[in-house]
């Protein structure tokens, strides 16, 4: 049976809008799918991903397990130390990106911007931050400040502005205009309006976005370890470089557990925060959510019933809020955050770097990166770039083959069974927790160096994001046609293909294109661990100090991603 429809209004966007449009869309959708499948198959062939490779991989896995088992666990003290450094670096980086994103987003948002020049400048800076990969920034900063935590803080902090700044600007735009207008009518200045009307409204979203970026940066820190940013990623890269697989995998597992733990905590906090800001449909699931929610109910502290027409017998004359549990908790949060900042500053070793000396060589070092150069191997780089793109396509294709069934079963309204829905949602969440780089390392060790390992690692990683996108877009479809089809006496498969897929098609294609973008960006980094593509030359150029090659690779990758962005913009417009 079909589960009861979700209690939300139908999403008009995903409904067929007229008798003529769907036909045109259907053509575009089919064309896109043919193109997507064709490119995927071609990429798989060129990379040499086939059944034999998979069988070979399974056989190798046995050897691999014998090699790594038993895991050589680092000492408890060492684990704590490296965990502290990693968390501290990631925390400071995220904080840096938040601090820099706040003014940028205020300027970038149409409702708070002082003027068009400010708006264009800040938008440009945000886009630029996203365009430069964090690894490239890390290579630059490691060159400046040496190995340690500071390069990681700066690299992740600056690159994160690309996401945090954009989402913050969106959050500001989504605040309700009423309070702003009221403050204008009071005679408040722009700054007063910003702080009194906009910030309180956007604060939950600000914190939630920051937490989300923290999760992402924790995964990114694994990659940055390879180019010399201190922490678990660095230890892991070192262990693999010494072919100490047992130790490397142990560090990978530690990072994995850390990722899953922080993901759990931050998902719970995010859910509470966003629910509090008016999104009433999110229900509490986990114990953590219940804990945070249970302790966040400001409305129940004071008596809610107000005497309607009679004046209160004795109005309270205090003009400071009573020191309730809610207030004590807010203080506790503030203390925890400040303590975390202090602990991160000292614990990560970010302060120990010789910053002054580093900055003094800033422009000299920047000069090493410009102009871009090819070191006489342009044809090799172009081939590697092609391989990177192929990895992206192959991984997205394989990932989609896995993610569509998994996502379908994870969709509440389609899977039709609470247990199935729960299990697959959990699986998708767990896969999302896996850092792609750790996956890539495992596949490189099992299958051997080369693009096949990279493509398979990204394919598996895609199930996390794409599976979630598929499930979400299926859950958003209108239940009406489903019911109508059931009334006709159709089978479940018929309903799925006639009523479900056509409705969700635009969202699914949007998800595919997004995943393709993510995969191509990730594929450029896989080479760092020997999983094929242009990333290998990124690492090689760092080691041979041919920094101009790094700039060239960055520009080439950016050109590919930008072209893809244009195509997907066009496609989305056609499909919608």
């Amino acid at each position: 049976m079909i589960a009861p429809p979700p209690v939300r209004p139908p999403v008009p966007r995903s409904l067929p809008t007229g008798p003529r449009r769907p036909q045109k869309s259907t053509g575009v959708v089919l064309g896109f799918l043919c193109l997507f499948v064709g490119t995927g198959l071609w990429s798989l062939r060129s990379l040499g991903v086939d059944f034999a490779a998979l069988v070979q991989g399974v056989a190798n896995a046995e050897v691999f397990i014998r090699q790594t088992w038993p895991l050589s666990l680092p000492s408890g003290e060492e684990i704590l130390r490296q965990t502290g450094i990693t968390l501290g670096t990631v925390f400071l980086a995220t904080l840096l990106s938040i601090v820099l994103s706040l003014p940028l987003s205020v300027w970038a948002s149409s409702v708070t911007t002082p003027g068009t020049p400010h708006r264009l400048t800040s938008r440009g800076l945000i886009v630029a931050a996203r365009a430069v990969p964090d690894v490239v920034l890390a290579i630059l900063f490691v060159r400046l400040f040496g190995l340690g935590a500071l390069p990681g803080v700066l690299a992740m902090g600056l690159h994160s502005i690309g996401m945090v700044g954009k989402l913050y600007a969106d959050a500001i735009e989504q605040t309700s205009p009423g309070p702003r207008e009221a403050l204008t009518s009071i005679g408040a200045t722009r700054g007063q309006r910003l702080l009194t009307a906009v910030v309180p409204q956007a604060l939950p979203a600000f914190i939630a976005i920051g937490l989300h970026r923290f999760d992402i940066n924790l995964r990114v820190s694994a990659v940055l370890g390879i180019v010399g940013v201190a922490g678990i990623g660095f230890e892991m890269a070192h262990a693999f470089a010494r072919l100490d697989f047992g130790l490397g995998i142990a560090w990978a597992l530690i990072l994995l557990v850390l990722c899953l733990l922080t993901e759990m905590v931050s998902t719970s906090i995010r859910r509470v925060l966003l629910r509090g800001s008016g999104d009433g449909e999110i229900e509490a699931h986990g114990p953590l959510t219940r804990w945070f929610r249970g302790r966040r109910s400001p409305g129940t502290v004071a008596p809610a019933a107000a005497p309607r027409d009679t004046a209160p017998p004795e109005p309270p004359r205090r003009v400071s809020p009573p020191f309730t549990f809610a207030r004590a908790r807010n203080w506790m949060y503030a203390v925890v955050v400040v303590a975390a900042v202090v602990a991160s500053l000292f614990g990560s070793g970010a302060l120990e770097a010789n910053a002054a000396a580093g900055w003094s060589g800033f422009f000299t070092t920047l000069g090493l990166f410009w102009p871009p150069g090819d070191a006489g191997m342009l044809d090799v780089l172009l081939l590697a770039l092609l391989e990177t793109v192929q990895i992206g396509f192959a991984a997205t294709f394989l990932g989609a083959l896995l993610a569509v069934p998994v996502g379908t079963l994870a969709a509440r309204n389609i899977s039709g069974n609470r247990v199935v829905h729960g299990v697959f949602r959990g699986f998708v969440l767990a896969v999302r927790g896996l850092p792609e780089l750790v996956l890539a390392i495992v596949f490189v060790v099992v299958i051997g160096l080369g693009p096949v390992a990279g493509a398979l690692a990204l394919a598996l990683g895609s199930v996390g994001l794409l599976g979630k996108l598929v499930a979400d877009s299926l859950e958003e479809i209108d239940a009406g046609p489903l019911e109508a089809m059931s009334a006709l006496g159709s089978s479940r498969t018929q309903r799925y293909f006639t009523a479900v897929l056509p409705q969700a098609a635009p969202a699914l294609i949007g998800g595919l294109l997004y995943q393709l973008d993510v995969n191509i960006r990730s594929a450029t980094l896989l080479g760092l661990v020997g999983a094929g593509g242009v990333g290998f030359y990124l690492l090689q150029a760092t080691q041979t100090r041919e920094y101009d090659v790094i700039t060239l690779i960055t520009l080439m990758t950016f050109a590919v991603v930008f072209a893809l962005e244009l195509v997907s913009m066009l496609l989305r417009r056609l499909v919608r």
Partner: protein
Amino acid sequence: MADHAVHDDVDREPAVSLTQVTKEFDGGVTALRGVGFDVPKGQILALLGRSGSGKSTLLRHICCLHRPTSGSLRVLGTDVARARGHHLRRLRRRTGFVFQQFNLVGQLSVLENVCSGALGRLVGPRLGLFSYARSLRVEALDHLDRVGMADLAFQRTSTLSGGQQQRVAIARALMQHPAILLADEPVASLDPDSADTVMRLLREIARERSLTVIGSLHQVDLALGWADRVIGLRDGEVTLDAPAATLDTTTAMEVYGMAPRTESMALDVTG
């Protein structure tokens, strides 16, 4: 039309004076057409009209949120068209505005929302209750007391009912030390009981502090019992201007265009 120029005595100058005020929006919509009338100090004036008749636009002009396309608008003796920078802010501060949707910041406490009414006379941005001086907080509590909301001062504003929020909004307007109180459909989103409380509060407070009040309403009965004077608007033009005491419901209903061809329109107004 108004001959406001002849009044030399400051005290006798009307609180608001409009002459041939016309407003065209960018889309080519004309919201006001040659509107002209004076509002003497201390008068309680009700603007009647259907939605889209220009009531809100008119109120927003008086609060200097819009500027007229042509014609002259003087508020408290100042030409709105020429007010800029801190003169404009000062003028806005002297005209309190009560909105249909309250427009409070739901995430802040009631007291902090009321305190924010003082922003127009403060320098620099404020966040958090303790960023307002103690004297301001005491004053805010007094205003809350006046509207009967002092015991909910530390509640999160979004937890209040509509009627309670509108009373908080009135307290916030009082915090501005206004000379004029503007109310744009202040009770359109409220249940009858709360509406009654809010309308009575507006009238009482206006009398206590000799405030000029201009409120837009679409319920004729409510307007006649509440205001000193009623002005009717239709399609951006004044179609009625009379003391409330001389009007009966039928006459006032003509504002809504109760001509034979739109008779059905009148039904949902009285209902």
